[in-house]
Every structure is written in C-alpha cells, then in structure tokens.
C-alpha cells in the first residue's frame, strides 16, 4: 500500500481527527509500519472450502423468536436507568430541551 501524506490527510478527515502538522510524519510512519505488518495476511491462501465459508462464521446467531418484544419500557422518563427518576440525561449543552451542536 502506498501511504503518503495525502492519504493520511484523507484518513484524518474520514475519521474526524485533527493531527498537528508537526506530528503527521511520525504518525504516518507508525501507521505504515502497522499496515505493512497486516500484509502478513496475504501470505495465507485460503483453500476452496475456506473461501466458500459464509462471510462471518464466528458471528453469533439468534433465533427470531428470541428477539425483544415490541413493548414500551415502563420508565416514566425514559432516560435514567432506575426506578422512575425524573431527571433526564445530563446533556452537555442544552437550549429549551434541544441539544446544542455546532453549525452545519
């Protein structure tokens, strides 16, 4: 994989992470190292049987009948976790009940 400065910048945008210009090269080097290490996976050739495996066999399975029933939870105010406490979740910044976010 050819990771370069622009690729890192793109990854940072995709992940919404700000990295100081002074740190970018260092980060780039460490990440490159890790991804090169991942290329070890290429050495493993899967035989036909393993290729065919449905995607995610380690995934747990659950029967449709064991899913949650469509019943309202009995709490009066939904956000508290115990015994009908009246306080709702303590959001950081609020205005008239709304959560304040940056402009979009």
């Amino acid at each position, binding site marked *: 994989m050819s990771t370069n400065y622009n690729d890192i910048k793109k990854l940072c945008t995709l992940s919404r992470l*700000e990295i100081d210009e002074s740190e970018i090269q260092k980060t780039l080097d460490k990440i490159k190292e890790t991804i090169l290490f991942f290329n070890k996976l290429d050495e493993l050739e899967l035989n036909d049987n393993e290729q065919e495996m449905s995607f995610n066999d380690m995934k747990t399975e659950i029967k449709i009948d064991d899913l949650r029933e469509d019943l309202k939870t009995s709490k009066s105010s939904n956000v508290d976790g115990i015994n009908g406490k009246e306080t709702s979740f303590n959001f950081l910044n609020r205005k008239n009940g709304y959560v304040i976010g940056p402009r979009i």
Partner: protein
Amino acid sequence: MGELHKLPGYQVSQKIRNQEIFAEEYISQLFERIDKVDLKINSFISKNYESVLLKAKQIDKKIKNNEKLGSLLGIPIGIKDNISVLGLKTTCASRILQEYVPPYNATVIDRLEKQDAIIIGKLNMDEFGMGTSSEFSHYGPVHNPWNQEYVAGGSSGGSAAAVSSLQVPVSLGSDTGGSIRCPCSFCSVIGIKPTYGLVSRYGLVSYSNSLEQIGPIARTVVDIAMTLNAICGRDSNDNTSASSSASAGIDQQFEYKIDSVDGILGKNYKVGIIDNLIDSSEYQVKETVHKKINLLKEHDFSVHKTKINYSDFALAAYYVIATAEASSNLSRFDNIRYGFNYNPEGYEWNSYSSHVRSNFGEEVKRRILVGSFVLSAGYYGKYYLKAQKIRKIIKNEFNKLFKLFDVLVLPTMPILPFRIGEKVAKPLELYNLDIYTILSNLAGIPAMSIPAGFSKEGLPIGLQLLSNEFNEQVLIDIATFFEHEDKFNEWIPSI
C-alpha cells in the same frame, strides 16, 4: 493500621456475615490502605468513599435485621474505568470523557450490587482499553506493585495492581486481546477472560465488540469463582450474551465450584502443552512455565506436547479486527451529547468534531486511523474479511485440540515486565506482546492467567490456561490445584 486488607474477599464476607467484623470498620481500613498505597501505584481514577461508607452501614444493618444476604456480602470491588457505574465518572482514562457520568449501571454492576458487593471506585487503564502496559492513560501510568519503576501491564493495569497491592480483594477488568491476563501476569494475581458471551457487555464501553469480555481479578481462586458466578449468565440487554445455542444449551445456569484437590485429580484432565509458543518466550519465562508443567507431571496429570498452527497470522488478524471495530465504536465521541465542557456555538460541525477528537491519546488516534483504513471500500476483502476467516480457522484449530485435551498451557506473556517508558515509542513491539493472549479472544474461548513465579529480579511471571468454550470449570480446577501446591495467594508485594 489493621490487617483486614490482607484478607481475601470470601473471608471478609464470612467474617462480616458472622459479625466478627463490621463492614464499616473493614471499609475504613481499606480506605486507609488505599490512601497510603495508591500514591505509588496510581491504580485509582476515582473513588466512591461517601456512598461506599453508606453502603457498608446498610450492610451492617441488613445483618442485624436478619435480612437476606448476597453471596458477595461486603466485598469491595474495584471497577475498571470503562465499565459504566451510575453516578460515577466513567472516563476510560481519556481526556475526552473526563466529565462523563453514566445515567445507568452496567449489568455486571447491577449483579454485583444485588449480591451486596460494594463498588469502591474506578480503576486506571490504557485509554479505551488500547494498550499492553497501562501507560497510555490521561491520568498517568499504573506502577507495578512489585517494582514501581515497571509497568503493571495493560490495559486493565489498575484493576490488577489494586488487587496485587492489597487495596481491594477483587476487581473487574475487561479483556479484548489480553487486557485482563497481561496485567495479572505482570502483577502476580489471578484473572480470567470468560467465554465470549458468558458475561454481559451491557455498560462496557466498546473497544472491539466481537472480541471483548468483562472478567474478575483476585488473589485467590475462590474469589474468582464467586465473582464470576455473580456476574455471568444471559442478559436480555445484550443480544450477544450466552445465546450461542450449540454450546451453551438453552439458558444454562452457570455455577462454578471449588473442588478439592483430590476431586480435581480424579477428573483425569488431559493437559496439552503448546510447545511452539512456549519456545518463543524469554528464557526466564520459559523456565518458570516448565517448572509448572513438571508440577503437573509429578501429580500424574496426563501431559502432552502439542502445537497450534496459524498463530503467526493471528496477531495480524486480531489487530485488523480490533482497530476496525474501534474506529467505528469511537466515532460517537464528538463531544456533543457528553464529554467535556467545550461550547460548540460558533464552530462548524466538521472542524469542531476533528478538534475535540484531537483530545484522544496518540495510540488511540493511530488505531482509529488504521481501523478506518482497513474498512475502506477497496481494502475490506484484503484485511477485515480475511481476518474474520482466520478467526474461524483458529477456532477450528482449537476444536481439534480440545478433542484431545481438556486444558492447554502456555505462558501469558512472552517477556518479563518492562520499565515504564521503555516501549511507549514502539507500538509494534507492544503489539507483539499480545501474541499468546489474542488467540483465545479470536476463538471466543475462556482463558485464565495464574501466578507462576518470579524472575531473578523479582518480577512476576504468569501461566496461561485455555479451555473450550463454556468450560471455565476446568480452568478453575487447574488453578485450584496450583494454588494448593504453590500457595500463590500468599505471594504479596512488600509495598
């Protein structure tokens, strides 16, 4: 100062129950111990003193009134700071959550409190569980009680160190790739990563959801079994808990027992020695592990050499999956709904998010970037998909082995504990330390680390035991055997 802090949990519980000691008195002594010792160890992020005292008083009252008493009566338990406790800050050792207080309890907390345990405080860790040394914490590194210049291991370093330094008898940690077992090995205590799905993850701040489990840490096997009994079992709040139909059976009730040594010997367990992995460990580790194996042979356990294939692919597969899932799990931290005080007014959405998220530690940032890369469209088949297939291959390997053996033995860590600061700048070196522990996370099988001995320099070495899924009883039995032989519950640091 009294000596009550030296007591294992189950003895504390007995004495309180019998009214030999009062919960309030015991807790106060523990506070003294913590205040004295933790300056050197730095295992606590936050303590719960007021409500703890209240709880202790309530317990004393309960006993007086002959009320029904829980199995963990009066036992103080430290909680790794990525497990949600209602009303207590849950920071995951990160600046980005430094003011987050959950409005709900993790299921394990509810279950502990139901058994009258006392939640004493939140314990230090590697930020968001990402690390093998507990150095990557916003609150400073955790120091090894056996030698404070050395790391306590990670990521549940605070949980292991607090137990090891007799600040609490029992703690909870979480294990994604060895995060319970590594610090237990480095701090000479017992820890277990249960079978995937045995313990509810509801309330555990996710790092890598398909790999991690919450598990107990203690100095004696009895405490491990008691705590595991209290927290395990299917949870309707976690659809990945104990619903695996094939192995678990339908809503099987799990209860782990402490057997006598004779009883254990009578079970004729077949022990497999994972030779190819033992061989790759440091000399003193190898030596110590061989001593333990000899102990087994001396007691007529059936012991045979074996090996596990594909382990060299396992480490890459593990980090692909862990970073991928982490990159998504940590997306929610944009400081809008919770986090730390930083008014968003006037900021534009994308730059605000990127800016607040720069408060992640370096290691966390790196893993998020790697994880994003691995999941991006062109690379999905090459990395993530392949890594998941490797999990299945490794599970199959273990299935083959468990047809021949009841338990597998290998070191917990390939090296001795290292100095604080020694490996911080070398992430890949740190990743390689996980090589023995990640196997059981990938396969979903349970794994336990028990104290095995010490290096010449007095640094702890741990022995790792693996069994097939939902077969924790085997691990408990083998651990009981070793505890009886070695009395490792009496190995206490001089701090």
